[in-house]
Structure formats: structure tokens, C-alpha cells
């Protein structure tokens, strides 16, 4: 600031603004954020410190095992044996790399593996179409996913000799292929079936209502393991010798019906949350019962129960690993049987297999739950509180 010679010495008027000073450190900035979010009270401070201690204790060994000491390539067990390589060995990712085809396709014939690949692509297309909310022709997408896609998948995977696709018995299917098939069948079948059952349970026709109640209560009354054992161990005993239902189809049907019963109760919860006035309002507009349900009640009811539906899907996805106990080679079962391979017998192979499984399930389940959150926010934008 320079004062000219003509300025009177006694008048002092500030002509420029004072440069802005940074806010006090304790009101904004990282320190303040820490104070507000992590140390706002003695209780919170203690929790923060405990959490930090856990991270410090767990993260370095975990990182060391999964990344730093990990072996990324190798031909056989020698690559992952500390006494051979001469340094401590963490996760043996070379094992996963060597077995990855088995983890994805199971024993599916090698020359036919393009078929599961096409199936994966078709699935990605269907899922993408349905999940991308602004996609064109989503009605077509739904028809594709719930009708065309299952038929195409069956033709592709199981094979129809008339179309030049050799038959591949389900005993050869395995790995992620089976896990995805089982959970997709569960998801695709349980949602429509569950909605029907939920509506049936609220029906005024006694026979329909009774049937739905008995169905739902029966399937909710038995554990999934029992259903699977029933399907794969007991059922063949009751069928005549020359009738046999496929070993994979039996648990598939069991899982679909089981999850439909749970879905029905979730959807019923949504239906009950819709005030009676909605139906009456729709009636006064002259809508038919079908339109009332489809245009007014169900869209609102389903939106309310999105968390519940996704919850069911996630638990269904994880429950599919139970089929391994009845001899179906799902993803987790392929890891279990690959880890006993003597060619890969090394101290950390088992842990690596399970770490890989955890990663796989986490990616899918976390993806589902994040997507559900996004949809929920978007559909509820009219009702933000």
C-alpha cells in the first residue's frame, strides 16, 4: 500500500480488501474433519483408536500374505514351497492361475467351452439391459431375460443334438458356471413366483389362499439343507428305477421353490404397507383389478421392498454353495477338490483357494447391494425426507 504525497496524513482509509486468512485449523481442514468425524466425543475417540489398532494389527499381515509374499506364477507346487523358493511364501496365486479354467467351467469339455462363454455374454447382456435404468426397450429386456435367455441358456449349455450342439451331461458342469446357473435360476424363478404367491396369499378365494399359505409355510418350515438332501438322496429312492431326474435339476427346483417362498413374504410385506386408499383411488378411476395391481399397487409395493428383495438375492447367491454337499460341483466345491491335487500340495494353497472364493463372492454380493442402494435412491427421489 503506497500513500501518495497529496494524501492527508491524518485520514487513513483502507482501499484494498484484507487478503482472506485461512479458517482456524480447528473449524475446517483435515484436522477439523478428524475432530468432527473421528474424535467428537471420548467414546468416539476410543472407538476410533480401537478400530485403528485393529487395522494396524490386521492389514499389514494380510497385505503381506495376499500381495507382498504372494507367488504369482509357477508350474507346480515347487513354486509355492518356502524351502524350494528360499523365502517365506504367502498366497499361492499361481495355483489359482493354473486351475482357473477348472474354477470357471468345471469339467465342461474343453472343445465346447465356447458355449459357457456365450452363456456368460448373454447373461451380461440381459443383466446389463435390466439394470441400466435408461436403457431402450426395457420391456423387451425383461422378456429377453425371463423367457428368451433361460431357453437359450438351456439349449446352449445342455446341448441339443438336432442343432449340432453335442449333449453335455450336467455331471460335467462345474465351477462359477454352476454357481451362476443355480443363482440365476433361483433369482429368475423366485421373483415372479414370489409375487404370485404373495398376491395369492391375500386373495379372497379360500382355495387359492390356502394353497399359497401351505406352500409358503412348508418351504419356510424346512432348512435348505434338508431340501437339498431330500432332492438328491431321498427322491431317487421314491422314483421308479427307470425314471431319473437330472442331478442338477433336482436341487435347482428345490432352491427355486425355497427362495420363492421367502420372496413371497418379502413382497407381501410391501403389499401390506400400501394404504387401502391407493386401491380405492385406482378403483374410482375405473381401473380393472389387473390394472389396479399392475399400475398402482405393485410398483409402490415393490419399491418399498427393494432392500428385502436384494437381501433375499444376496443370501440366495451365497446359499448356492450349499449344493456342494450333495455332490454338485459349484464354485466352492471346485476349490475344495482342486486344493487336494498333489501336484499343488503346498502349505498355503488351501488358504489361497479360500481367499479367492471370498473375493469372488464379495465382488458379486457387494455389487448387488451397491446397485440396490442406487436404485432405491433414484426411485425414492420424490420422497426424500
Amino acid at each position, binding site marked *: 500500500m503506497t500513500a501518495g504525497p497529496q494524501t492527508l496524513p491524518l485520514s487513513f482509509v483502507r482501499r484494498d480488501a484484507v487478503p482472506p486468512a485461512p479458517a482456524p485449523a480447528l473449524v475446517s481442514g483435515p484436522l477439523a474433519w478428524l475432530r468432527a468425524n473421528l474424535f467428537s466425543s471420548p467414546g468416539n475417540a476410543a472407538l476410533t483408536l480401537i478400530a485403528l489398532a485393529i487395522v494396524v494389527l490386521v492389514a499389514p499381515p494380510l497385505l503381506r500374505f495376499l500381495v507382498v509374499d504372494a507367488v504369482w506364477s509357477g508350474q507346480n507346487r515347487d513354486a509355492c*514351497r518356502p524351502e524350494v523358493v528360499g523365502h517365506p511364501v504367502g498366497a499361492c496365486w499361481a495355483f489359482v492361475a493354473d486351475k482357473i*479354467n477348472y474354477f470357471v467351467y468345471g469339467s465342461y469339455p474343453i472343445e465346447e467351452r465356447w458355449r459357457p462363454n456365450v452363456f456368460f455374454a448373454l447373461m451380461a447382456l440381459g443383466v446389463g439391459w435390466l439394470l441400466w435404468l435408461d436403457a431402450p426397450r426395457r420391456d423387451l429386456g425383461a422378456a429377453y431375460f425371463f423367457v428368451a435367455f433361460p431357453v437359450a441358456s438351456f439349449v446352449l449349455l445342455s446341448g441339443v443334438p438336432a442343432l449340432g450342439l453335442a449333449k453335455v*451331461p450336467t455331471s460335467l458342469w462345474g465351477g462359477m458356471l454352476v454357481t451362476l446357473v443355480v443363482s440365476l435360476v433361483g433369482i429368475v424363478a423366485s421373483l415372479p413366483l414370489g409375487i404370485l404367491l404373495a398376491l395369492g396369499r391375500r386373495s379372497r378365494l379360500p382355495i387359492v389362499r390356502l394353497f399359497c399359505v401351505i406352500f409358503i409355510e412348508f418351504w419356510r418350515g424346512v432348512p435348505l439343507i434338508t431340501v437339498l438332501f431330500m432332492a*438328491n438322496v431321498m427322491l431317487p429312492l421314491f422314483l421308479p428305477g427307470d425314471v431319473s431326474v437330472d442331478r442338477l435339476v433336482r436341487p435347482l427346483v428345490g432352491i427355486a421353490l425355497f427362495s420363492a417362498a421367502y420372496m413371497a413374504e418379502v413382497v407381501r410385506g410391501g403389499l401390506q404397507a400400501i394404504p387401502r386408499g391407493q386401491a380405492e383411488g385406482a378403483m374410482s378411476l375405473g381401473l380393472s383389478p389387473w390394472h389396479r395391481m399392475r399400475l398402482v399397487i405393485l410398483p409402490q409395493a415393490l419399491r418399498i421392498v427393494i432392500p428385502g428383495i436384494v437381501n433375499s438375492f444376496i443370501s440366495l447367491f451365497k446359499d448356492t454353495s450349499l449344493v456342494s454337499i450333495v455332490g454338485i*460341483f459349484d464354485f466352492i466345491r471346485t476349490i475344495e477338490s482342486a486344493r487336494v491335487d498333489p501336484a499343488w500340495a503346498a502349505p498355503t494353497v488351501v488358504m489361497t483357494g479360500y481367499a479367492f472364493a471370498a473375493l469372488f463372492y464379495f465382488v458379486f454380493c457387494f455389487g448387488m447391494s451397491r446397485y440396490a442402494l442406487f436404485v432405491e435412491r433414484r426411485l425414492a427421489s420424490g420422497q426424500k425426507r
Partner: protein
Amino acid sequence: MRKTVAALALGLGASLLAGAAQAQATLTSIKQKGYIACGSNPGLAGFGVPDAQGRWAGLDVDFCRALSAAIFNDAGKVRFIPLSAKDRFTALQSGEVDILSRNTTWSMSRDTTLGLDFPAINFYDGQGFMVKKKLGVTSAKQLEGASVCTQQGTTTELNLADYFRANKLKYEVVAFASADETFKAYDSGRCDAFTTDASGLYAERLRASAPDDNIVLPEIISKEPLGPAVRQGDAQWSDVVRWTHYAMLNAEEAGITQGNADQMLKTSDNPDVKRILGTEGKYGADLGLTGDWAYRIIKLVGNYGEVFEKNVGQGSPLKIQRGLNALWSKGGLQYGPPIR
């Protein structure tokens, strides 16, 4: 409760299916459908384990391939249906599989109450011990006061108690719920010895942090004769299974291998060899197969010694000694009645 239900189910299955099994001979139905449904192990090193491409490999698996070779002249017409220990017998009884070839112990109660037959023993197993080399122990009798890692609730645990009591040795059991945990505990030095079936000991040893620091003791303290099982009441199929095993034994004894089978077929004058390879007599036809049934087995799968060495013996990482599974002429128990 679970046991009662299982017993009920098994009994029911046995009685229901005794009739169904007789309705159609297994061999005929196998030829009709064009493949053998083989109940296999979902994963046991050396006996039935899928490789990186999902192809099954192992001693028990190769036994089904040998059957397929004998029937179809193609070792690949087998559908492996992996069965857990729980559902293996019902799967056989219900006709879902034609043969169970998954290291099943032949015991009297299984033979007499489940409606099964055990036509052959393709592996003599038994419970053994593994110890750290540095202990300087060379026999199980020296395990006085040792702590032994074992799996909870298995016959292994009971055999262990019997053995130590019979030999008046003091010991301490350290039991774990799963096989993995048990071995990890031994490997980390939690106990002096580890016990399970001998075939399993060799597989587990490979997973040790220093495999060469561990030795398997020579004592076998229990009898575990493992072999294929078939439904009772189909003598023909039972014979086919039994003689497939014996053909592999006889081939080894006569020195016929996968490699020299063709040459033997042309040049050998040995009547034993000629009978095995089907150039003399019509033994295959009496079995419901072709004359060259045993030649096919040897050519496409191998003799018993070859299959053994490839899957569990010196040609595999397991390196199990022949021991009891050597031919009778070499001090073992594998004895193939003559083909004549």
C-alpha cells in the same frame, strides 16, 4: 435322529431297489445307454481328483475307465458322478450310478446290510502315523507319551485309542474338527505325531512346510480294504467288475504293459499271456464281453502296477510304496486268480 433317518432311508432303498436292480441286468443297461455311471470321489489325492482342465485322474477313476475299456473299447465312456461319503450308498442303491469306485472300505456291516457287493479290493489301506524326523522315532511302538493329532469323531480316533491301549503306551490325543486343522496343528509342532489313513498321510506330507522332515512310520494299525462296490443281486456285473481288477493284476504278473501289449499279442507263446489277451479260449464271451476284453483294458488303461505307479506310486507326487498292494509274488496281497 439323523442316523435313524439315514438308516431308515438306506433300509428303504435297499428293499425297494433289490427288485429294481434285478429288473434289468446292469451290463445290458450300460451297453444300451452307452456309458458307465461311475460314483467317484469328489476329491482325494491319487484316487480321484480333477486336473486343471477338470479331467478326473486317480486310481479309483482309472478303475472305471478300465471297465469302460473292457465294455466299449474306449476308456472315455464314463460319466463320473462325484459322491460325498453321505450320499454314496443311496446313489448306488437307487440306480443312479452303476458302480461306486471311491475308496469305500469293505466292512461286514456294509456288505450285509446295505444291499451291496464288494467284488474286489483295489487298494489295501490302513491307519498309519507320521512323525517329525528329528524325534528319532522309527516305530509306532516308541511313541510312549507322545501327543497325537487326529480328527474328531472318526474311526481314526477310536483305532488310535485301541492301539495305544493294546500296547500299554501312554499318549495324549489332540483332536480337531477338520482334516485341514488337524494337519496344520501337527505341522506347526502342536503334537509329535499325526495319524490318518496311510494313503492320506502321503498326501498330507506334501503340504507340510518341510515335507522331507517328516517320515511315515511302518506300522499300520487298522485294516481299510478299499474297493469298488456294486448293487447286490447282479452276479454278471459283479463278475465283470471283479475280473476287470483281476485282469489288471494278471497282466502285471505276466509282464504285459500298455506299451508291449500289441507286441505280446503277436509274438508271445506263453499260454497265460494268450489267455489273458484273448487269443486262446473264449473267457470274455462267458463274461458277456468280447474276447479281447482284457487286451483293451491293458492297452487303453494299463496293468495294475502301471495304474498304481502313475496315480499314487513313484510316478506321482504321492510316492506311496506298493507295500500290501504289491503282487502276491512280491510279498503283497494283490492276488489275481488265474484266467483259464
